[in-house]
């Protein structure tokens, strides 16, 4: 895996586009206002992508996890938990920066000035509260019939509003006929976020996304992570200037807020920042020095 702002020879935007297109590649769904019902729905994708998007060919981990929690059995889905834990342990928030379709939308919407907007710390911690509520409410807030709702999907998720709500309603008159005040409430959240996306870099990922909050715990422990070589660093702070989130990358290369866009590794003139698993061939470090 290369480390200078590219994964293999493919730039990040191409990865994002490929991921969004592949995850939503059931084209007939968009025209007919129906959803895919094939075997792909057995697979849980590692990013936020509503399974009721007309094009979705996989299952959303947040929706799926809540579905099991809110169901009659109120169980923790080991399958979904294992999937997101594995991805987090492998690459941390790289998924946010390279694969998430909703992350791509936020980047496309952002004006260049959005990168300079700093968010207050309290807003950055909001996503952890959303994560706690996403997991706890389906267990605690149980309705009269002994079942709960996937509350994050129902009241908040803007990806669901856009991908399932808007896109499905456009192609399906029956769905359009059922839209009411709850949809308008969710639509207002989506519109607010769409406006914010223009002026603030990735506002949803940084303040609301429960999956981003979950992956952020893994940044410091993931197999592939950023490593900063103190000896090579010239102190030019190019990495800090390049970071769209305004992080002091040389000080905390695996900060929980880092979405691993790897722009810092691309601009570092001395190669002091590397995205690496750290695994080396034994023969290349004989006599205590790297001879590759």
């Amino acid at each position, binding site marked *: 895996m290369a480390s200078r702002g590219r994964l293999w020879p493919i730039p990040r935007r191409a990865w994002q586009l490929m991921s969004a297109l592949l995850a939503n590649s059931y084209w007939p769904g968009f025209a007919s206002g129906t*959803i*895919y*019902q094939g*075997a792909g*729905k*057995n697979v*849980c994708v590692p990013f936020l992508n*509503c*399974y*009721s998007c007309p094009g979705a060919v996989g*299952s959303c981990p947040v*929706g*799926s996890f809540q*579905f*099991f929690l809110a169901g009659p059995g109120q169980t923790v*889905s*080991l*399958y*979904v*938990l*294992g*999937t997101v*834990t*594995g991805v*987090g*342990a*492998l690459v941390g928030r790289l998924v946010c920066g390279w694969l998430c379709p909703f992350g791509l939308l936020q980047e496309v919407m952002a004006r260049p000035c959005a990168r300079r907007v700093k968010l207050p710390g309290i807003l950055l911690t909001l996503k952890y509260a959303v994560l706690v509520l996403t997991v706890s409410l389906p267990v605690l807030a149980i309705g009269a019939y002994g079942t709960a*709702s*996937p509350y994050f*999907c*129902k009241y908040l*998720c803007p990806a*669901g*509003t856009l991908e*399932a*709500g808007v896109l*499905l*309603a456009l192609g399906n008159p029956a*769905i359009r006929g*059922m*839209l*009411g005040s*709850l*949809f*308008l*409430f*969710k*639509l207002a959240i989506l519109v607010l976020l769409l406006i914010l996306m223009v002026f603030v870099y990735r506002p949803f990922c940084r303040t609301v996304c429960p999956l981003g909050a979950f992956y952020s715990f*893994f940044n410091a*422990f*993931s*197999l592939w992570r950023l490593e900063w070589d103190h000896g090579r660093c010239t102190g030019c702070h190019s990495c800090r200037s390049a970071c769209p989130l305004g992080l002091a990358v040389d000080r905390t290369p695996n900060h929980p807020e880092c979405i691993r866009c790897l722009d810092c590794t691309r601009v570092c003139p001395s190669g002091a920042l590397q995205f690496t*698993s*750290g*695994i*080396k*061939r*034994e*023969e290349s470090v004989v006599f205590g020095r790297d001879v590759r």
Partner: protein
Amino acid sequence: MAQRTLPPGRGLSVLLLVVSALLIAAGAARGEIPELFQKAVRICLECIGIG
């Protein structure tokens, strides 16, 4: 012969990867995948903002 060694600090990542594989296997063994499939192939009214 070339061998790969695990660098310091990566043990926890590998442990988490093993745990995640076990979780996925346990979830599959108790029938979560067909259950998930049944949910995912129906239109989610909550996701849209109807239900």
